[in-house]
């Protein structure tokens, strides 16, 4: 069976019908991962014992396969009475998984902020919360824009995992085309090309953002 370019093109609309799902799941999971990762890292710094606990949580998240985490949320939590729709499970799973990595990225981003910044905020009488949100967070984001963007791209590329819990994202649709037509080469090439274009697009955006941050906040 030879590769049929016409068939490859013809399946693109079918696959793209999952684009919206892929994109919103990526965005929601990325935001969730950023918020959760930042929270984990801030709690890790807050006091010694909570620090140890959070260190373990972050390491545990990074040390278990994303598929195990997804299955856990989708198949195990319902046993204990928490049943989430497939898409919500997928968002939660990816958010948790990437929060572990982003917490590490944020750790580096915060460590590289001069200690004098914390002190100046404290000396002005700001609450800890305000020092974190108004002084530390914006400077951290500037420091971590590039590695954080990489993990967002990584989250995009991890959305096909959600095919295993029946979320109608693009890989799932491509597999369906394959199963119905007994041709897998064309839908796989098409779905791969779509992911490639999306990921390259995000990379460009991240690089633009990084440059703008550097210009705006020159030291």
């Amino acid at each position, binding site marked *: 069976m030879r590769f049929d370019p016409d068939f490859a093109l013809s399946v693109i609309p079918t696959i793209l019908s999952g684009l919206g799902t892929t994109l919103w799941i990526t965005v929601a999971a990325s935001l969730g991962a950023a918020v959760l990762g930042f929270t984990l890292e801030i709690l890790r710094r807050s006091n010694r014992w909570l620090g140890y606990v959070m260190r373990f949580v972050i390491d545990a998240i990074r040390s278990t396969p994303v598929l195990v985490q997804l299955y856990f949320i989708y198949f195990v939590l319902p046993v204990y009475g928490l049943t989430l729709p497939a898409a919500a499970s997928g968002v939660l799973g990816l958010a948790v998984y990437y929060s572990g990595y982003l917490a590490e990225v944020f750790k580096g981003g915060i460590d590289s902020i*001069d200690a*004098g*910044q914390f*002190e*100046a*905020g*404290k*000396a*002005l*009488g*700001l*609450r*800890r919360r*305000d020092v974190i949100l*108004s*002084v530390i967070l*914006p*400077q951290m984001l*500037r420091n971590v824009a590039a590695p954080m963007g990489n993990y967002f791209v990584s989250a995009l590329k991890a959305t096909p995992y959600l095919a295993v819990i029946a979320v109608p994202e693009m890989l799932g649709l491509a597999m369906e085309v394959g199963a119905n037509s007994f041709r897998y080469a064309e839908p796989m090439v098409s779905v791969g090309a779509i992911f490639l274009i999306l990921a390259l697009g995000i990379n460009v955006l991240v690089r633009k953002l990084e440059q703008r941050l550097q210009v*705006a*906040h*020159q*030291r």
Partner: protein
Amino acid sequence: MNDVSNFPAVRISGLQKWYGSFQVLHDVDLTVQANERIVICGPSGSGKSTLIRCVNQLETHQRGTIEVNGRQMGKSTPNMHMLRRDIGMVFQHFNLFPHLTVLENCTLALRKARGMSLAQARDVARHYLERVRIPEQQDKYPGQLSGGQQQRVAIARALCMNPKVMLFDEPTSALDPEMIKEVLDVMTDLAREGMTMICVTHEMNFARTVADRVVFMDAGRIVEQADPQTFFSAPSHPRARQFLSQLL
């Protein structure tokens, strides 16, 4: 009523501090009255900076007491952030917020800690930027200013909170010589207006002309306290004599 003027601005007694097993402050006693200007000097490593950083509890102490305006400052003090609002601090390396403009640096704490509206906070900030003679730079970022300008902004930022005491931690030590004067001029103005000031500095001319009292520290102890005239002409402690002779 809890009238602040009944208390000394700062009262430190029996202060002891260790870094691990190394004792940096030995039994320090120091009382600073409202409207008094104190200059703390001494060789590096003598504990001057540590002492004033204990006043607003950027450093915690292990023994002794610190009171600011009659309020105890310590590790277990609740709402420390509220007490710090009345204590301004100026750092050696300015510590301006690089992601905020000059004006935003000054308005941040007014908005978050004093709960002012943006318009109100801007008015206050512009007033103090004018007093440190830098109103035209308000929309620039700290990185676009010279060291002297940055330090003057840092002073304005602290003054915005209308503090009862100002702490200066070697405010001119990181500056090029030609910028030292502009910062000292602002500090001198402030002293003339009656601000209570505790300054750690090596600027002996500033001490001579502005200070009510010079405190000399060595190896974690206050070894001499005197008015500047006495201190500079006839220091009684041999360590102070040696220190002054090296400066001249």
